[in-house]
């Protein structure tokens, strides 16, 4: 999709402007505040219905309807429009969008609406426009912010939402499992307590049940099933009510509370847990590697000594790949071990805390049973809530620790709280001693078996629930691992493609000083690592060591790499809004070549306040004279004044027609100096005298340029003769004769210039005296420009099986072998 015509009315600083790029590149230049960016905003608005400059950070109070229109048009929004004729797949389509209804894009013919929408969907990523703001987003931002910006470009919000879903399911299942595990332990403890066992085992339970059945003259049962516990037992006439605790149960409860509160291992485990949590807080990145475990294990067996990644088939740039993988494998083992340990310890603590809670509840029930009124209810409530907070914290200790929501009360203090011994256990002990055994052995056996029916049912239910919960937890963890693994694998491919293009573009700009340049763009947890190689000194963040100019280059290259991946062939318009600020002239030329070579089908809209860069874009044939627009003299009533960039010779002719020789002379002198400066650069001219200021005048530039030109032409003739290229020899010799004539003529005229080095004396010249000077220079200029494509000839090293030096133009019409 390319822009053929564009009309803007009352948008930002523009009152009314019409341009006709006809699908070709456009350069808009002019001083700051001339309204260049308003044109960019208008195109942005046409494509997206938004103005990027009015969105994002720091734009809270900026609104499209108030600040997107010209200040005079706030009450006439229907008249704030951008109209364009575009071409998509050879079809001519008209577009119109108004700030009055920014979401509505009028497409004519209407049947092409879907085609246009498909193209403009890419624009909604924001990857059609590069401005200074994006430089801050991609290059100099923190890894997390950069990841967000690039992920938003890649439209990965949905992927991140799905990952969050899997994390939620995993955490929820893990919590469920801890509850199930705790419930099972509680059920076991109640059985142990009821049967006065030392330790839970199904066999011990069966033995105890059978011993109780024998007291009641019933036979042993082979397996412990709820329905069979009292099978064949004669009902005991004075059966106890379930709620009443037996003396033995109370004694067991007291003993278990004492055991639990004296457990040094809980204290030690809670300290170990906190230590592990603190370590993981500091090493958050390790979580990422766990999902890579299998990949890395496989990688080590495949990589061998080749130092090439078996997955991507690319050479590892940072030392030994095998050592890197082994190092990562070790880190994964350590991290996995820590996560498992945290789960194990927190589960253990939770079970013990829950058992203690349950026993305290039983003990308090015993208090009520004996009608003791010693326990302060508020103290009891406070104590129970402290136990509760630990029980809850153990469900997801890592999250609570990271969020700073760790229980305030220390576990050691809770367990050694004198409340338990003094207010709960001692009074019970004393009462039991006074009351003594009240029930017969048969009564106790009957009561115990009655209660055992319920306890055993609960035990079996909680056992099943735990098994189910464990499997769900395993499945939830697997789903998350698979999703993260799939995401990382696919995104690595995406980032790899972007990285390759980024490297390629950057090398094409800095082949002379950074031919070995490489980059690393890779996801790491929620961040995006972006490192670049600095002159064989290792990998560093892009803004760490490189100059401002190099960072600008990186920004442009990353933008193009992302654009290439995302936009593909759907949207051909690329806007560069005053971005190439710190890049020097030679590297700007390389940017021009990159635009031409790597993006031949794109339509660039380039704004700049730098007239030299604008001129360079024209010299390098990125833009034609027709599509150079000079914005100047902006004022609030008229918006920017727009001037088409006229041809130099037309401007001089206009001055001479008006008998304004000083103006014509000034233009010739100034432009000739710039022109020969460029020629020297393009031909890599030798012979410029050394100056500390690196500034030369026209005479010095012209002399160096002409002598270099002659040298190359002589070499080209000699090489053509060697190769028996008779036709070429003839053409080149004719050119040499013509060049000598032009140079000779211009040298005569040069006398006029030399004589008047300070061109103020030209004011005395008559128009007729100055016209031959102009003609001679025009012919002289034409020697250095291809008559077919209009580009300046340049000296380059042609890369091939046998590299050779040539002088050529953009279209290849000029081709001199100057080896």
């Amino acid at each position, binding site marked *: 999709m390319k822009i053929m015509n564009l009309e803007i009315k009352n948008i930002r600083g523009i009152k009314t402007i019409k341009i006709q790029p006809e699908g070709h590149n456009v350069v808009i230049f002019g001083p700051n505040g001339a309204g260049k960016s308003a044109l960019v905003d208008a195109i942005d608005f046409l494509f997206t219905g938004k103005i990027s400059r009015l969105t994002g950070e720091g734009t809270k109070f900026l609104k499209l309807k108030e600040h997107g229109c010209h200040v005079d048009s706030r009450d006439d929004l229907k008249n704030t429009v951008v109209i364009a004729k575009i071409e998509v797949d050879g079809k001519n389509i008209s577009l119109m969008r108004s700030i009055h209804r920014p979401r509505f894009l009028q497409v004519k013919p209407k049947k092409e609406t879907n085609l246009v929408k498909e193209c403009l*969907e*890419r624009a909604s*990523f924001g990857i059609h426009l590069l401005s200074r703001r994006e430089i801050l987003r991609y290059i100099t931002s923190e890894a997390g912010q950069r990841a967000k910006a690039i992920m938003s470009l*890649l*439209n*990965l919000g*949905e*992927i991140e939402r*799905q990952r969050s*879903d*899997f994390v*939620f*399911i995993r955490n*929820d*299942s893990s919590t469920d499992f801890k509850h199930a595990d705790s419930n099972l332990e509680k059920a076991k403890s109640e059985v142990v307590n009821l049967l006065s066992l030392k330790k839970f085992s199904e066999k011990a339970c069966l033995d105890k049940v059978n011993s109780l059945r024998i007291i009641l003259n019933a036979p042993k049962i082979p397996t412990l099933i709820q329905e069979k516990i009292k099978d064949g037992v004669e009902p005991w006439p004075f059966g106890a009510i379930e709620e009443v605790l037996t003396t033995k149960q109370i004694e067991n409860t007291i003993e278990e509370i004492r055991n639990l509160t004296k457990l040094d291992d809980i204290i030690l485990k809670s300290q170990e847990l906190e230590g592990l949590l603190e370590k993981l807080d500091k090493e958050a990145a390790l979580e990422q590697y766990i999902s890579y475990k299998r990949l890395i294990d496989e990688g080590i067996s495949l990589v061998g000594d080749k130092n090439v990644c078996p997955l991507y088939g690319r050479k590892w740039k940072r030392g030994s790949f095998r050592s890197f993988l082994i190092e990562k494998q070790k880190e994964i083992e350590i991290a996995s071990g820590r996560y498992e340990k945290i789960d194990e310890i927190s589960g253990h603590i939770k079970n013990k805390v829950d058992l203690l809670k349950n026993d305290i509840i039983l003990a308090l029930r015993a208090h009520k049973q004996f009608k003791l009124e010693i326990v302060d209810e508020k103290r009891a409530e406070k104590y129970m809530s402290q136990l509760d907070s630990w029980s809850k914290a153990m469900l997801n200790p890592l999250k609570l620790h990271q969020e700073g929501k760790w229980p305030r009360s220390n576990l050691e203090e809770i367990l050694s709280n004198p409340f338990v011994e003094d207010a709960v256990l001692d009074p019970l002990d004393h009462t039991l001693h006074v009351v003594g055994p009240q029930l017969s052995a048969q009564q106790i056996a009957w009561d115990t078996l009655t209660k055992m029916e319920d306890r055993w049912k609960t035990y079996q239910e909680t056992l099943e629930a735990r098994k*189910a919960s464990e*499997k*769900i937890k*395993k*499945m*939830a963890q*697997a*789903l998350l691992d*698979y*999703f993260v*693994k*799939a*995401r990382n*694998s*696919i*995104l690595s491919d*995406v980032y790899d493609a972007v990285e390759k293009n980024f490297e390629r573009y950057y090398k094409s700009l800095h082949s002379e000083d950074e031919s070995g340049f490489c980059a690393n763009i890779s996801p790491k947890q929620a961040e995006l690592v972006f490192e670049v190689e600095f002159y064989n000194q290792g990998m560093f963040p892009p803004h760490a060591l490189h100059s401002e100019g190099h960072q600008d280059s990186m920004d442009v290259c990353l933008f193009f790499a992302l654009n290439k*991946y*995302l*936009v*593909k062939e759907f949207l051909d318009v690329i806007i560069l809004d005053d971005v190439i600020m710190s890049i020097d002239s030679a590297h700007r030329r390389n940017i021009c070549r990159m635009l031409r070579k790597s993006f031949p089908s794109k339509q660039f809209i380039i704004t700049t306040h730098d007239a030299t860069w604008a001129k360079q874009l024209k010299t390098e044939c990125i833009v034609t004279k027709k599509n150079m627009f000079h914005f100047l003299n902006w004022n609030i009533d008229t918006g920017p004044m727009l001037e088409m960039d006229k041809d130099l010779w037309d401007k001089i002719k206009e001055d001479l027609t008006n008998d304004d020789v000083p103006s014509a002379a000034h233009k010739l002198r100034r432009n000739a100096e710039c022109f020969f400066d460029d020629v020297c650069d393009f031909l890599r001219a030798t012979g410029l005298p050394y100056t500390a200021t690196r500034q030369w005048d026209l005479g010095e530039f012209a002399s160096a340029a002409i002598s270099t030109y002659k040298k190359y032409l002589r070499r080209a003739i000699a090489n053509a003769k060697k190769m028996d290229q008779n036709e070429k020899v003839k053409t080149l010799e004719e050119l040499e004769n013509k060049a000598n004539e032009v140079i000779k003529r211009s040298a005569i005229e040069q006398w006029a210039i030399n004589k008047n080095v300070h061109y103020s004396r030209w004011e005395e010249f008559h128009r007729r005296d100055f016209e031959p000077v102009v003609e001679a220079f025009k012919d002289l200029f034409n020697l250095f420009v291809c008559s077919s494509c209009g580009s300046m000839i340049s000296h380059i090293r042609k890369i091939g099986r046998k590299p050779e030096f040539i002088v050529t133009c953009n279209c290849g019409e000029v081709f001199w072998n100057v080896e």
Partner: protein
Amino acid sequence: MGGKSISDLILSQFSKYVESDELFEGISALLVSAVREKKGATKIKEILEKNHK
């Protein structure tokens, strides 16, 4: 579509992993379609809870 195709690629890779794991035998198709249809965490967990045996 840049973003959409990335999302599709990820889900397709994810499906392969899930389908080849015995742990999800019999429910992989149900799970994958719930993910593709963006049914959300509650629905996916419900599938696990109903089909864990």
